[in-house]
């Protein structure tokens, strides 16, 4: 699979997690693409943590509005139902359990649902932004990422980078499959038929429990 196809597979599958009426926050990068794959028969509202709900797609060139950006600073549009608010209200929504789902990337995620996605000591320290609040407060936390980082494993028995939060991840969606975090560990519930179960386990440090109802993710 090329990069584009990998991203399309992940975004398409993540979008299937949403239910009609959900309020969702999408992280920067790959998670942002998920908005393009929401099934047409459900109504999903997107929140932007810099202070609004009802975020629409990127504007046509030349139609950008100076005071209307997403949490990555990129120009966006709003839907008619949009509402703006300050950062305290934004994090009331996020931390207060009013967000049905947050989708974000990870540097590492582990079998206990621990997430590391905000710094690599000595190398890259961008800061946590709103990520710690998002994963602490959202009802469902979905990690959407490529299964490995240029061949090195990211789904571990235990994270060794500084954590974003402890035991918060519910589901991991990669181009190879879908894993649910359970008390027993990571359960592989769906897989991409382009790979075998052995292929997937070979690039996953955590031991995968194979769901008895395992099905294809595509």
């Amino acid at each position, binding site marked *: 699979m090329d990069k584009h196809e990998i991203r399309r597979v992940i975004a398409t599958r993540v979008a299937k997690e949403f239910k009609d009426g959900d309020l969702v926050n999408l992280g920067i990068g790959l998670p942002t693409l998920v908005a393009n794959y929401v099934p047409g028969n459900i109504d999903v509202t997107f929140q932007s943590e810099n202070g609004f709900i009802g975020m629409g797609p990127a504007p046509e060139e030349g139609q950008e509005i100076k*005071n209307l950006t997403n949490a990555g*600073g990129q120009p966006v549009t709003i839907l008619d139902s949009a509402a703006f608010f300050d*950062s*305290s209200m934004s994090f009331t929504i996020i931390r207060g359990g009013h967000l049905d789902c947050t989708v974000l990337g990870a540097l590492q995620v582990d079998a206990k649902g621990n997430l590391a996605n905000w710094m690599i000591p000595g190398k890259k320290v961008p800061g946590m932004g709103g990520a*710690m*609040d998002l994963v602490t407060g959202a009802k469902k936390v979905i990690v959407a990422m490529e299964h490995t980082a240029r061949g090195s494993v990211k789904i571990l028995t235990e994270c060794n980078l500084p954590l974003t939060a402890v035991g918060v991840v519910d589901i991991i969606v990669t181009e190879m499959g879908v894993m649910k975090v359970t008390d027993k560990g990571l359960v592989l519930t769906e897989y991409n038929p382009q790979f075998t179960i052995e292929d997937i386990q070979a690039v996953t440090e955590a031991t995968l429990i194979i769901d008895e109802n395992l099905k294809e993710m595509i």
Partner: protein
Amino acid sequence: MNKLSTVDQAIAKIDDGMTLMIAGFLGCGTPETLIDAIVEKGTKDLTIICNDTAFPDKGIGKLIVNKQVKKVITSHIGTNPETGRQMNEGEIEVVLSPQGTIAEQVRAAGAGLGAVVTPTGVGTVVEEGKQTIEIKGRKYLIEEPLRADVAIINAHQADKKGNLVYNMSAVNFNPLMATAADTVIVEAEEIVEVGDLNPNFIHTPHIFIDMIVKGGQNG
């Protein structure tokens, strides 16, 4: 009481070594005219409380690039490589804190609360050195309020008494920071007469505002 000020009168309130709150989110809703004037004046050893350090050529980032900041309390520095470089060289102290925590720390200061009690950051490096408390079986961090000597904020409209209206995603930290500093300076894109703004739709009541400066178009 006349709050209308020139840019020079306003930034005269900001001395070397002060703690300064600067509103905005990656430069959106940031008072660029005031920042440009502080850059030109060269005020130094500032402690800045802000959401992010924006970009090297935009917003708070310009103060970082010009080496006027000794400490920054913020949630994100990733869009301004110069902040990271100065941090790695030991030229600036960077305290990274979750965005929602900073928002509530500022709000708490303005609201007269003694602390923020939040689950965010439990079990991470954010917890290090902080008091914790368990309430109904859940662990929380105790985060202290954040106050500043001066807050500089950006509004879409201000009336001449200081009632403010913000625009779209440029709201962000502006109304919070307006409550949490000894002196609050607003840079407004448009200044209107008292009575021109609908009292039902004022975001920040005028009592919080000390000085009003006519701004440009916010970068």
